[in-house]
């Protein structure tokens, strides 16, 4: 779990906010409290990580309103909605829009903390994936167009001769490109090259 992760609580009810913050404190989970959706929106930025525990009913800007705004801003912050009696239709709508979960008041301890943890894991994963993909993209970005074509075919296990015929270049030229790729990606063996290829495919496939 990332140390920077925080639980962001947005609820208009002071009692609920206080209670949540105390409970989270007992498990050493840092949190930040917001009285209204607009307060949170003001404080929000790309760097924020963790999860959002959001009351679905609030005056002026509801939880759903805030969710919509965050999606529009490209936020990937996992949202757990707090719902009350009779809010199921709203909760269903929230899930459809990509909320990770909803919990009904009053909360059962395990339910709540487990779900918060799950949401934090989701956040973690999502952010890690985002980080990996970025690294892969950055790594491969050093290769030229021709070198990338060679890399993919080498990593797929094709012979130099086949690659040369495929690309319409000489076998010798393929070998030069291959050497450049190995050098640029910092690998010495074919096996290492293959692993990079698999990793890229895994990340890109997400």
């Amino acid at each position, binding site marked *: 779990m990332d140390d920077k992760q925080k639980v962001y609580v947005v609820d208009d*009810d002071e*009692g*609920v906010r*206080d*209670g*949540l913050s*105390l*409970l989270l*404190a*007992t*498990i050493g989970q840092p949190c930040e409290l917001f009285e209204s959706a607009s307060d949170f929106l003001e404080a929000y930025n790309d760097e924020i990580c963790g999860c959002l525990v959001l009351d679905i*009913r*609030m*005056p*002026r800007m*509801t939880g759903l309103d805030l969710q919509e705004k965050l999606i529009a801003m490209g936020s990937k912050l996992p949202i757990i909605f707090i719902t*009350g*009696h*009779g809010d199921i239709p709203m909760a269903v709508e929230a899930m459809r829009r990509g909320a990770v979960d909803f919990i009904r*008041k*009053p*909360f*059962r*301890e395990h339910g*709540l903390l487990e779900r918060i943890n799950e949401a934090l894991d989701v956040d973690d994963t999502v952010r890690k994936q985002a980080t990996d993909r970025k690294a892969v993209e950055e790594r491969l970005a050093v290769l030229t167009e021709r070198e990338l074509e060679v890399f993919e075919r080498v990593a797929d296990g094709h012979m130099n001769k086949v690659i040369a015929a495929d690309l319409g270049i000489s076998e010798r030229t393929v070998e030069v490109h291959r050497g450049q790729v190995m050098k640029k990606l910092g690998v010495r063996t074919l096996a290492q090259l293959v692993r990079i290829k698999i990793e890229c495919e895994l990340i890109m496939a997400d």
Partner: protein
Amino acid sequence: MKPSQQVRELAATVPGATTDELLHNLLANLAGLLGARRAYVTEVADGTARSIASWEDNRRGPVREYRINGTPCATVMQDGVQVVDCELADRYLLGESSIGFGCESFVGSPIVDHNGDRIGQLCVFGTNPLDDSEMAAALVSLAAVRVSAELEHRQHEAALERSEAYSRAIVATAAEGVLTVDANGRIESFNRAAEKMFGYLADEVIGKDVHVLIPERYRNAHSGYVDRFFTTGEASIIGSGREVSARHKDGTVFPIHLAASEVSLNGERCFAGIIRDVSAQKAAEESLKATERRFRAVFDQRLQLVAILSPTGIVLEANQRSLDFSGLEHGDVVGREFWSTPWWTHSQDLQHRMKDAIEAAAQGATLRFEVTKPRVDEELGILDFSIRPIMDKSGQVVFLLCESHDITEHKRAEEEARHHRERIAHVSRLSTLGEMAAGIAHEINQPLTAISLFAQAGKRLVDAGQFEKMDEVCFKLNEHALRAAEVVERMQSMARQGESRKEVVDCNDLIESAVRLAESEARIYDIQIEFSKGPDLPPVSVDGVQIQQVALNLLRNGMEAMIAANQRKGCPIRITTRLCDEEKIEVAVADCGGGVPESRIDKLFTPFSTTKKSGMGMGLSISQAIIRAHGGRIDFHNNDSCGARFWFTLPAAKKGSHSG
């Protein structure tokens, strides 16, 4: 002149037209006959003589007044006829100022009245000695008798005249009509008052039959009375007066009081009647009787219980209804102290209250209160009792008037209506609570959620041995539990069914509570309730739950109107309290919804008329019933800008009202 001749001459003295002339003629003749210089007729009283007639030196003399002491006149008064034939001055030593100074002879004779008393004298003074003193004495005596007779006659006449003048004046100016009737029934006299009463002038009726003054149908009876009187001497009205009918000239019959007396004159009987017109008196009596009858009619009517008391509280009168109510007799209450009559003996408390009320009323106060007392059928009756003072012109309290209405049935009907209203109000409240269930559940869930969170945190702290924060945790747990309980309590009081209880409460507190309940929904709808409390509101005496119900109803209606008009997202609904005037408080709810549509305005307060999908359409009609039952008014108007403003008024609690 021979004596017989002299007497004849004297007797021939023509009686003058008046006594004065007659006396002077007599003195002149006498003086002539006796050759006297002076002659007087005097009245003598207390030793002083005063001339009534005087003859001096052949003509009328002045009035002489003198003391008779030492004069021959004194001898006359004492001894009777006196003659001094000569040397008068020597015998009586008359001074210069004396009446007979310088005279030689004197003849005097006393004048006597009908009782024989000497009241004066006739005296003659001569300047020569008398030739024939006996003759002179006889002549003077004769003249004195004549004078005596004349004077007495004159006195009688004067007395008669005076008495007649008196009676004429009395009769003429009498307020009573006076008439006299002769034995034949002819009117002899008819005074001015009688003229006025009967419309006849005296001349028109004098000499006519008295029957003209008697209505036709009584004429026979009158003749009968008169006949009987003459034949038997029995009189029905002679000497005593009585009321009879009389006839006016214009034919109208009017009541008179007639007092008749019989007068016998020269053996002839006649009647004098003194008549008083009693029309006015009669009319007054009649009107008094009519008033009395009216009073009786009012007094004995069937609806009210009435008693009249003396200012000290003694029962003077009680009407039949008041007796019937408790099955009492007149004698059970009249003459007794009001508070100790069987009317109030069922309750000592009431007896004290009545006593106090009487004291206050005797001081001029009017009191009114409700009392309960057993009726004759032993059911408990409720009376609307009042007592007020009746004052005379000077403002003195002369009676106390107690009135009571039997309002048992009225009260019962009112009670039933109230029960009915309460039942409907209760059903409506339950229905409202049902509609508000989501909001209320949310309202309760909030503190429960907080409690659950603090409890979970607390357990972890205990497990971890971190007790320092437990104090705060427990405090918070309690705080939120109480918060939840408050919501439940508010809801419970709204769900309460039971006797309407009026309490003296602060209107702002009441509305605050209703606002809290409404807020549970307002949060869901995302509407802001703004409550502005009027300052210095007097307390109101109300059934708190019912008034909250009305306020809640208006708030919810307003919110629904705003939702329908899509005015949410923190739009405010405003509820305000304020003092209208000394005696009224206004509570107003202004929303910013769509307002009341024209087509709905008339039916707004009608039961079962609703535009809402849910609800019974009872809210406003019940609100109206509740507010009216509290003596207030409820109404609304559409705002100029947006929405509607509903308001109701409540009368301020009267000072001194108690709760309960």
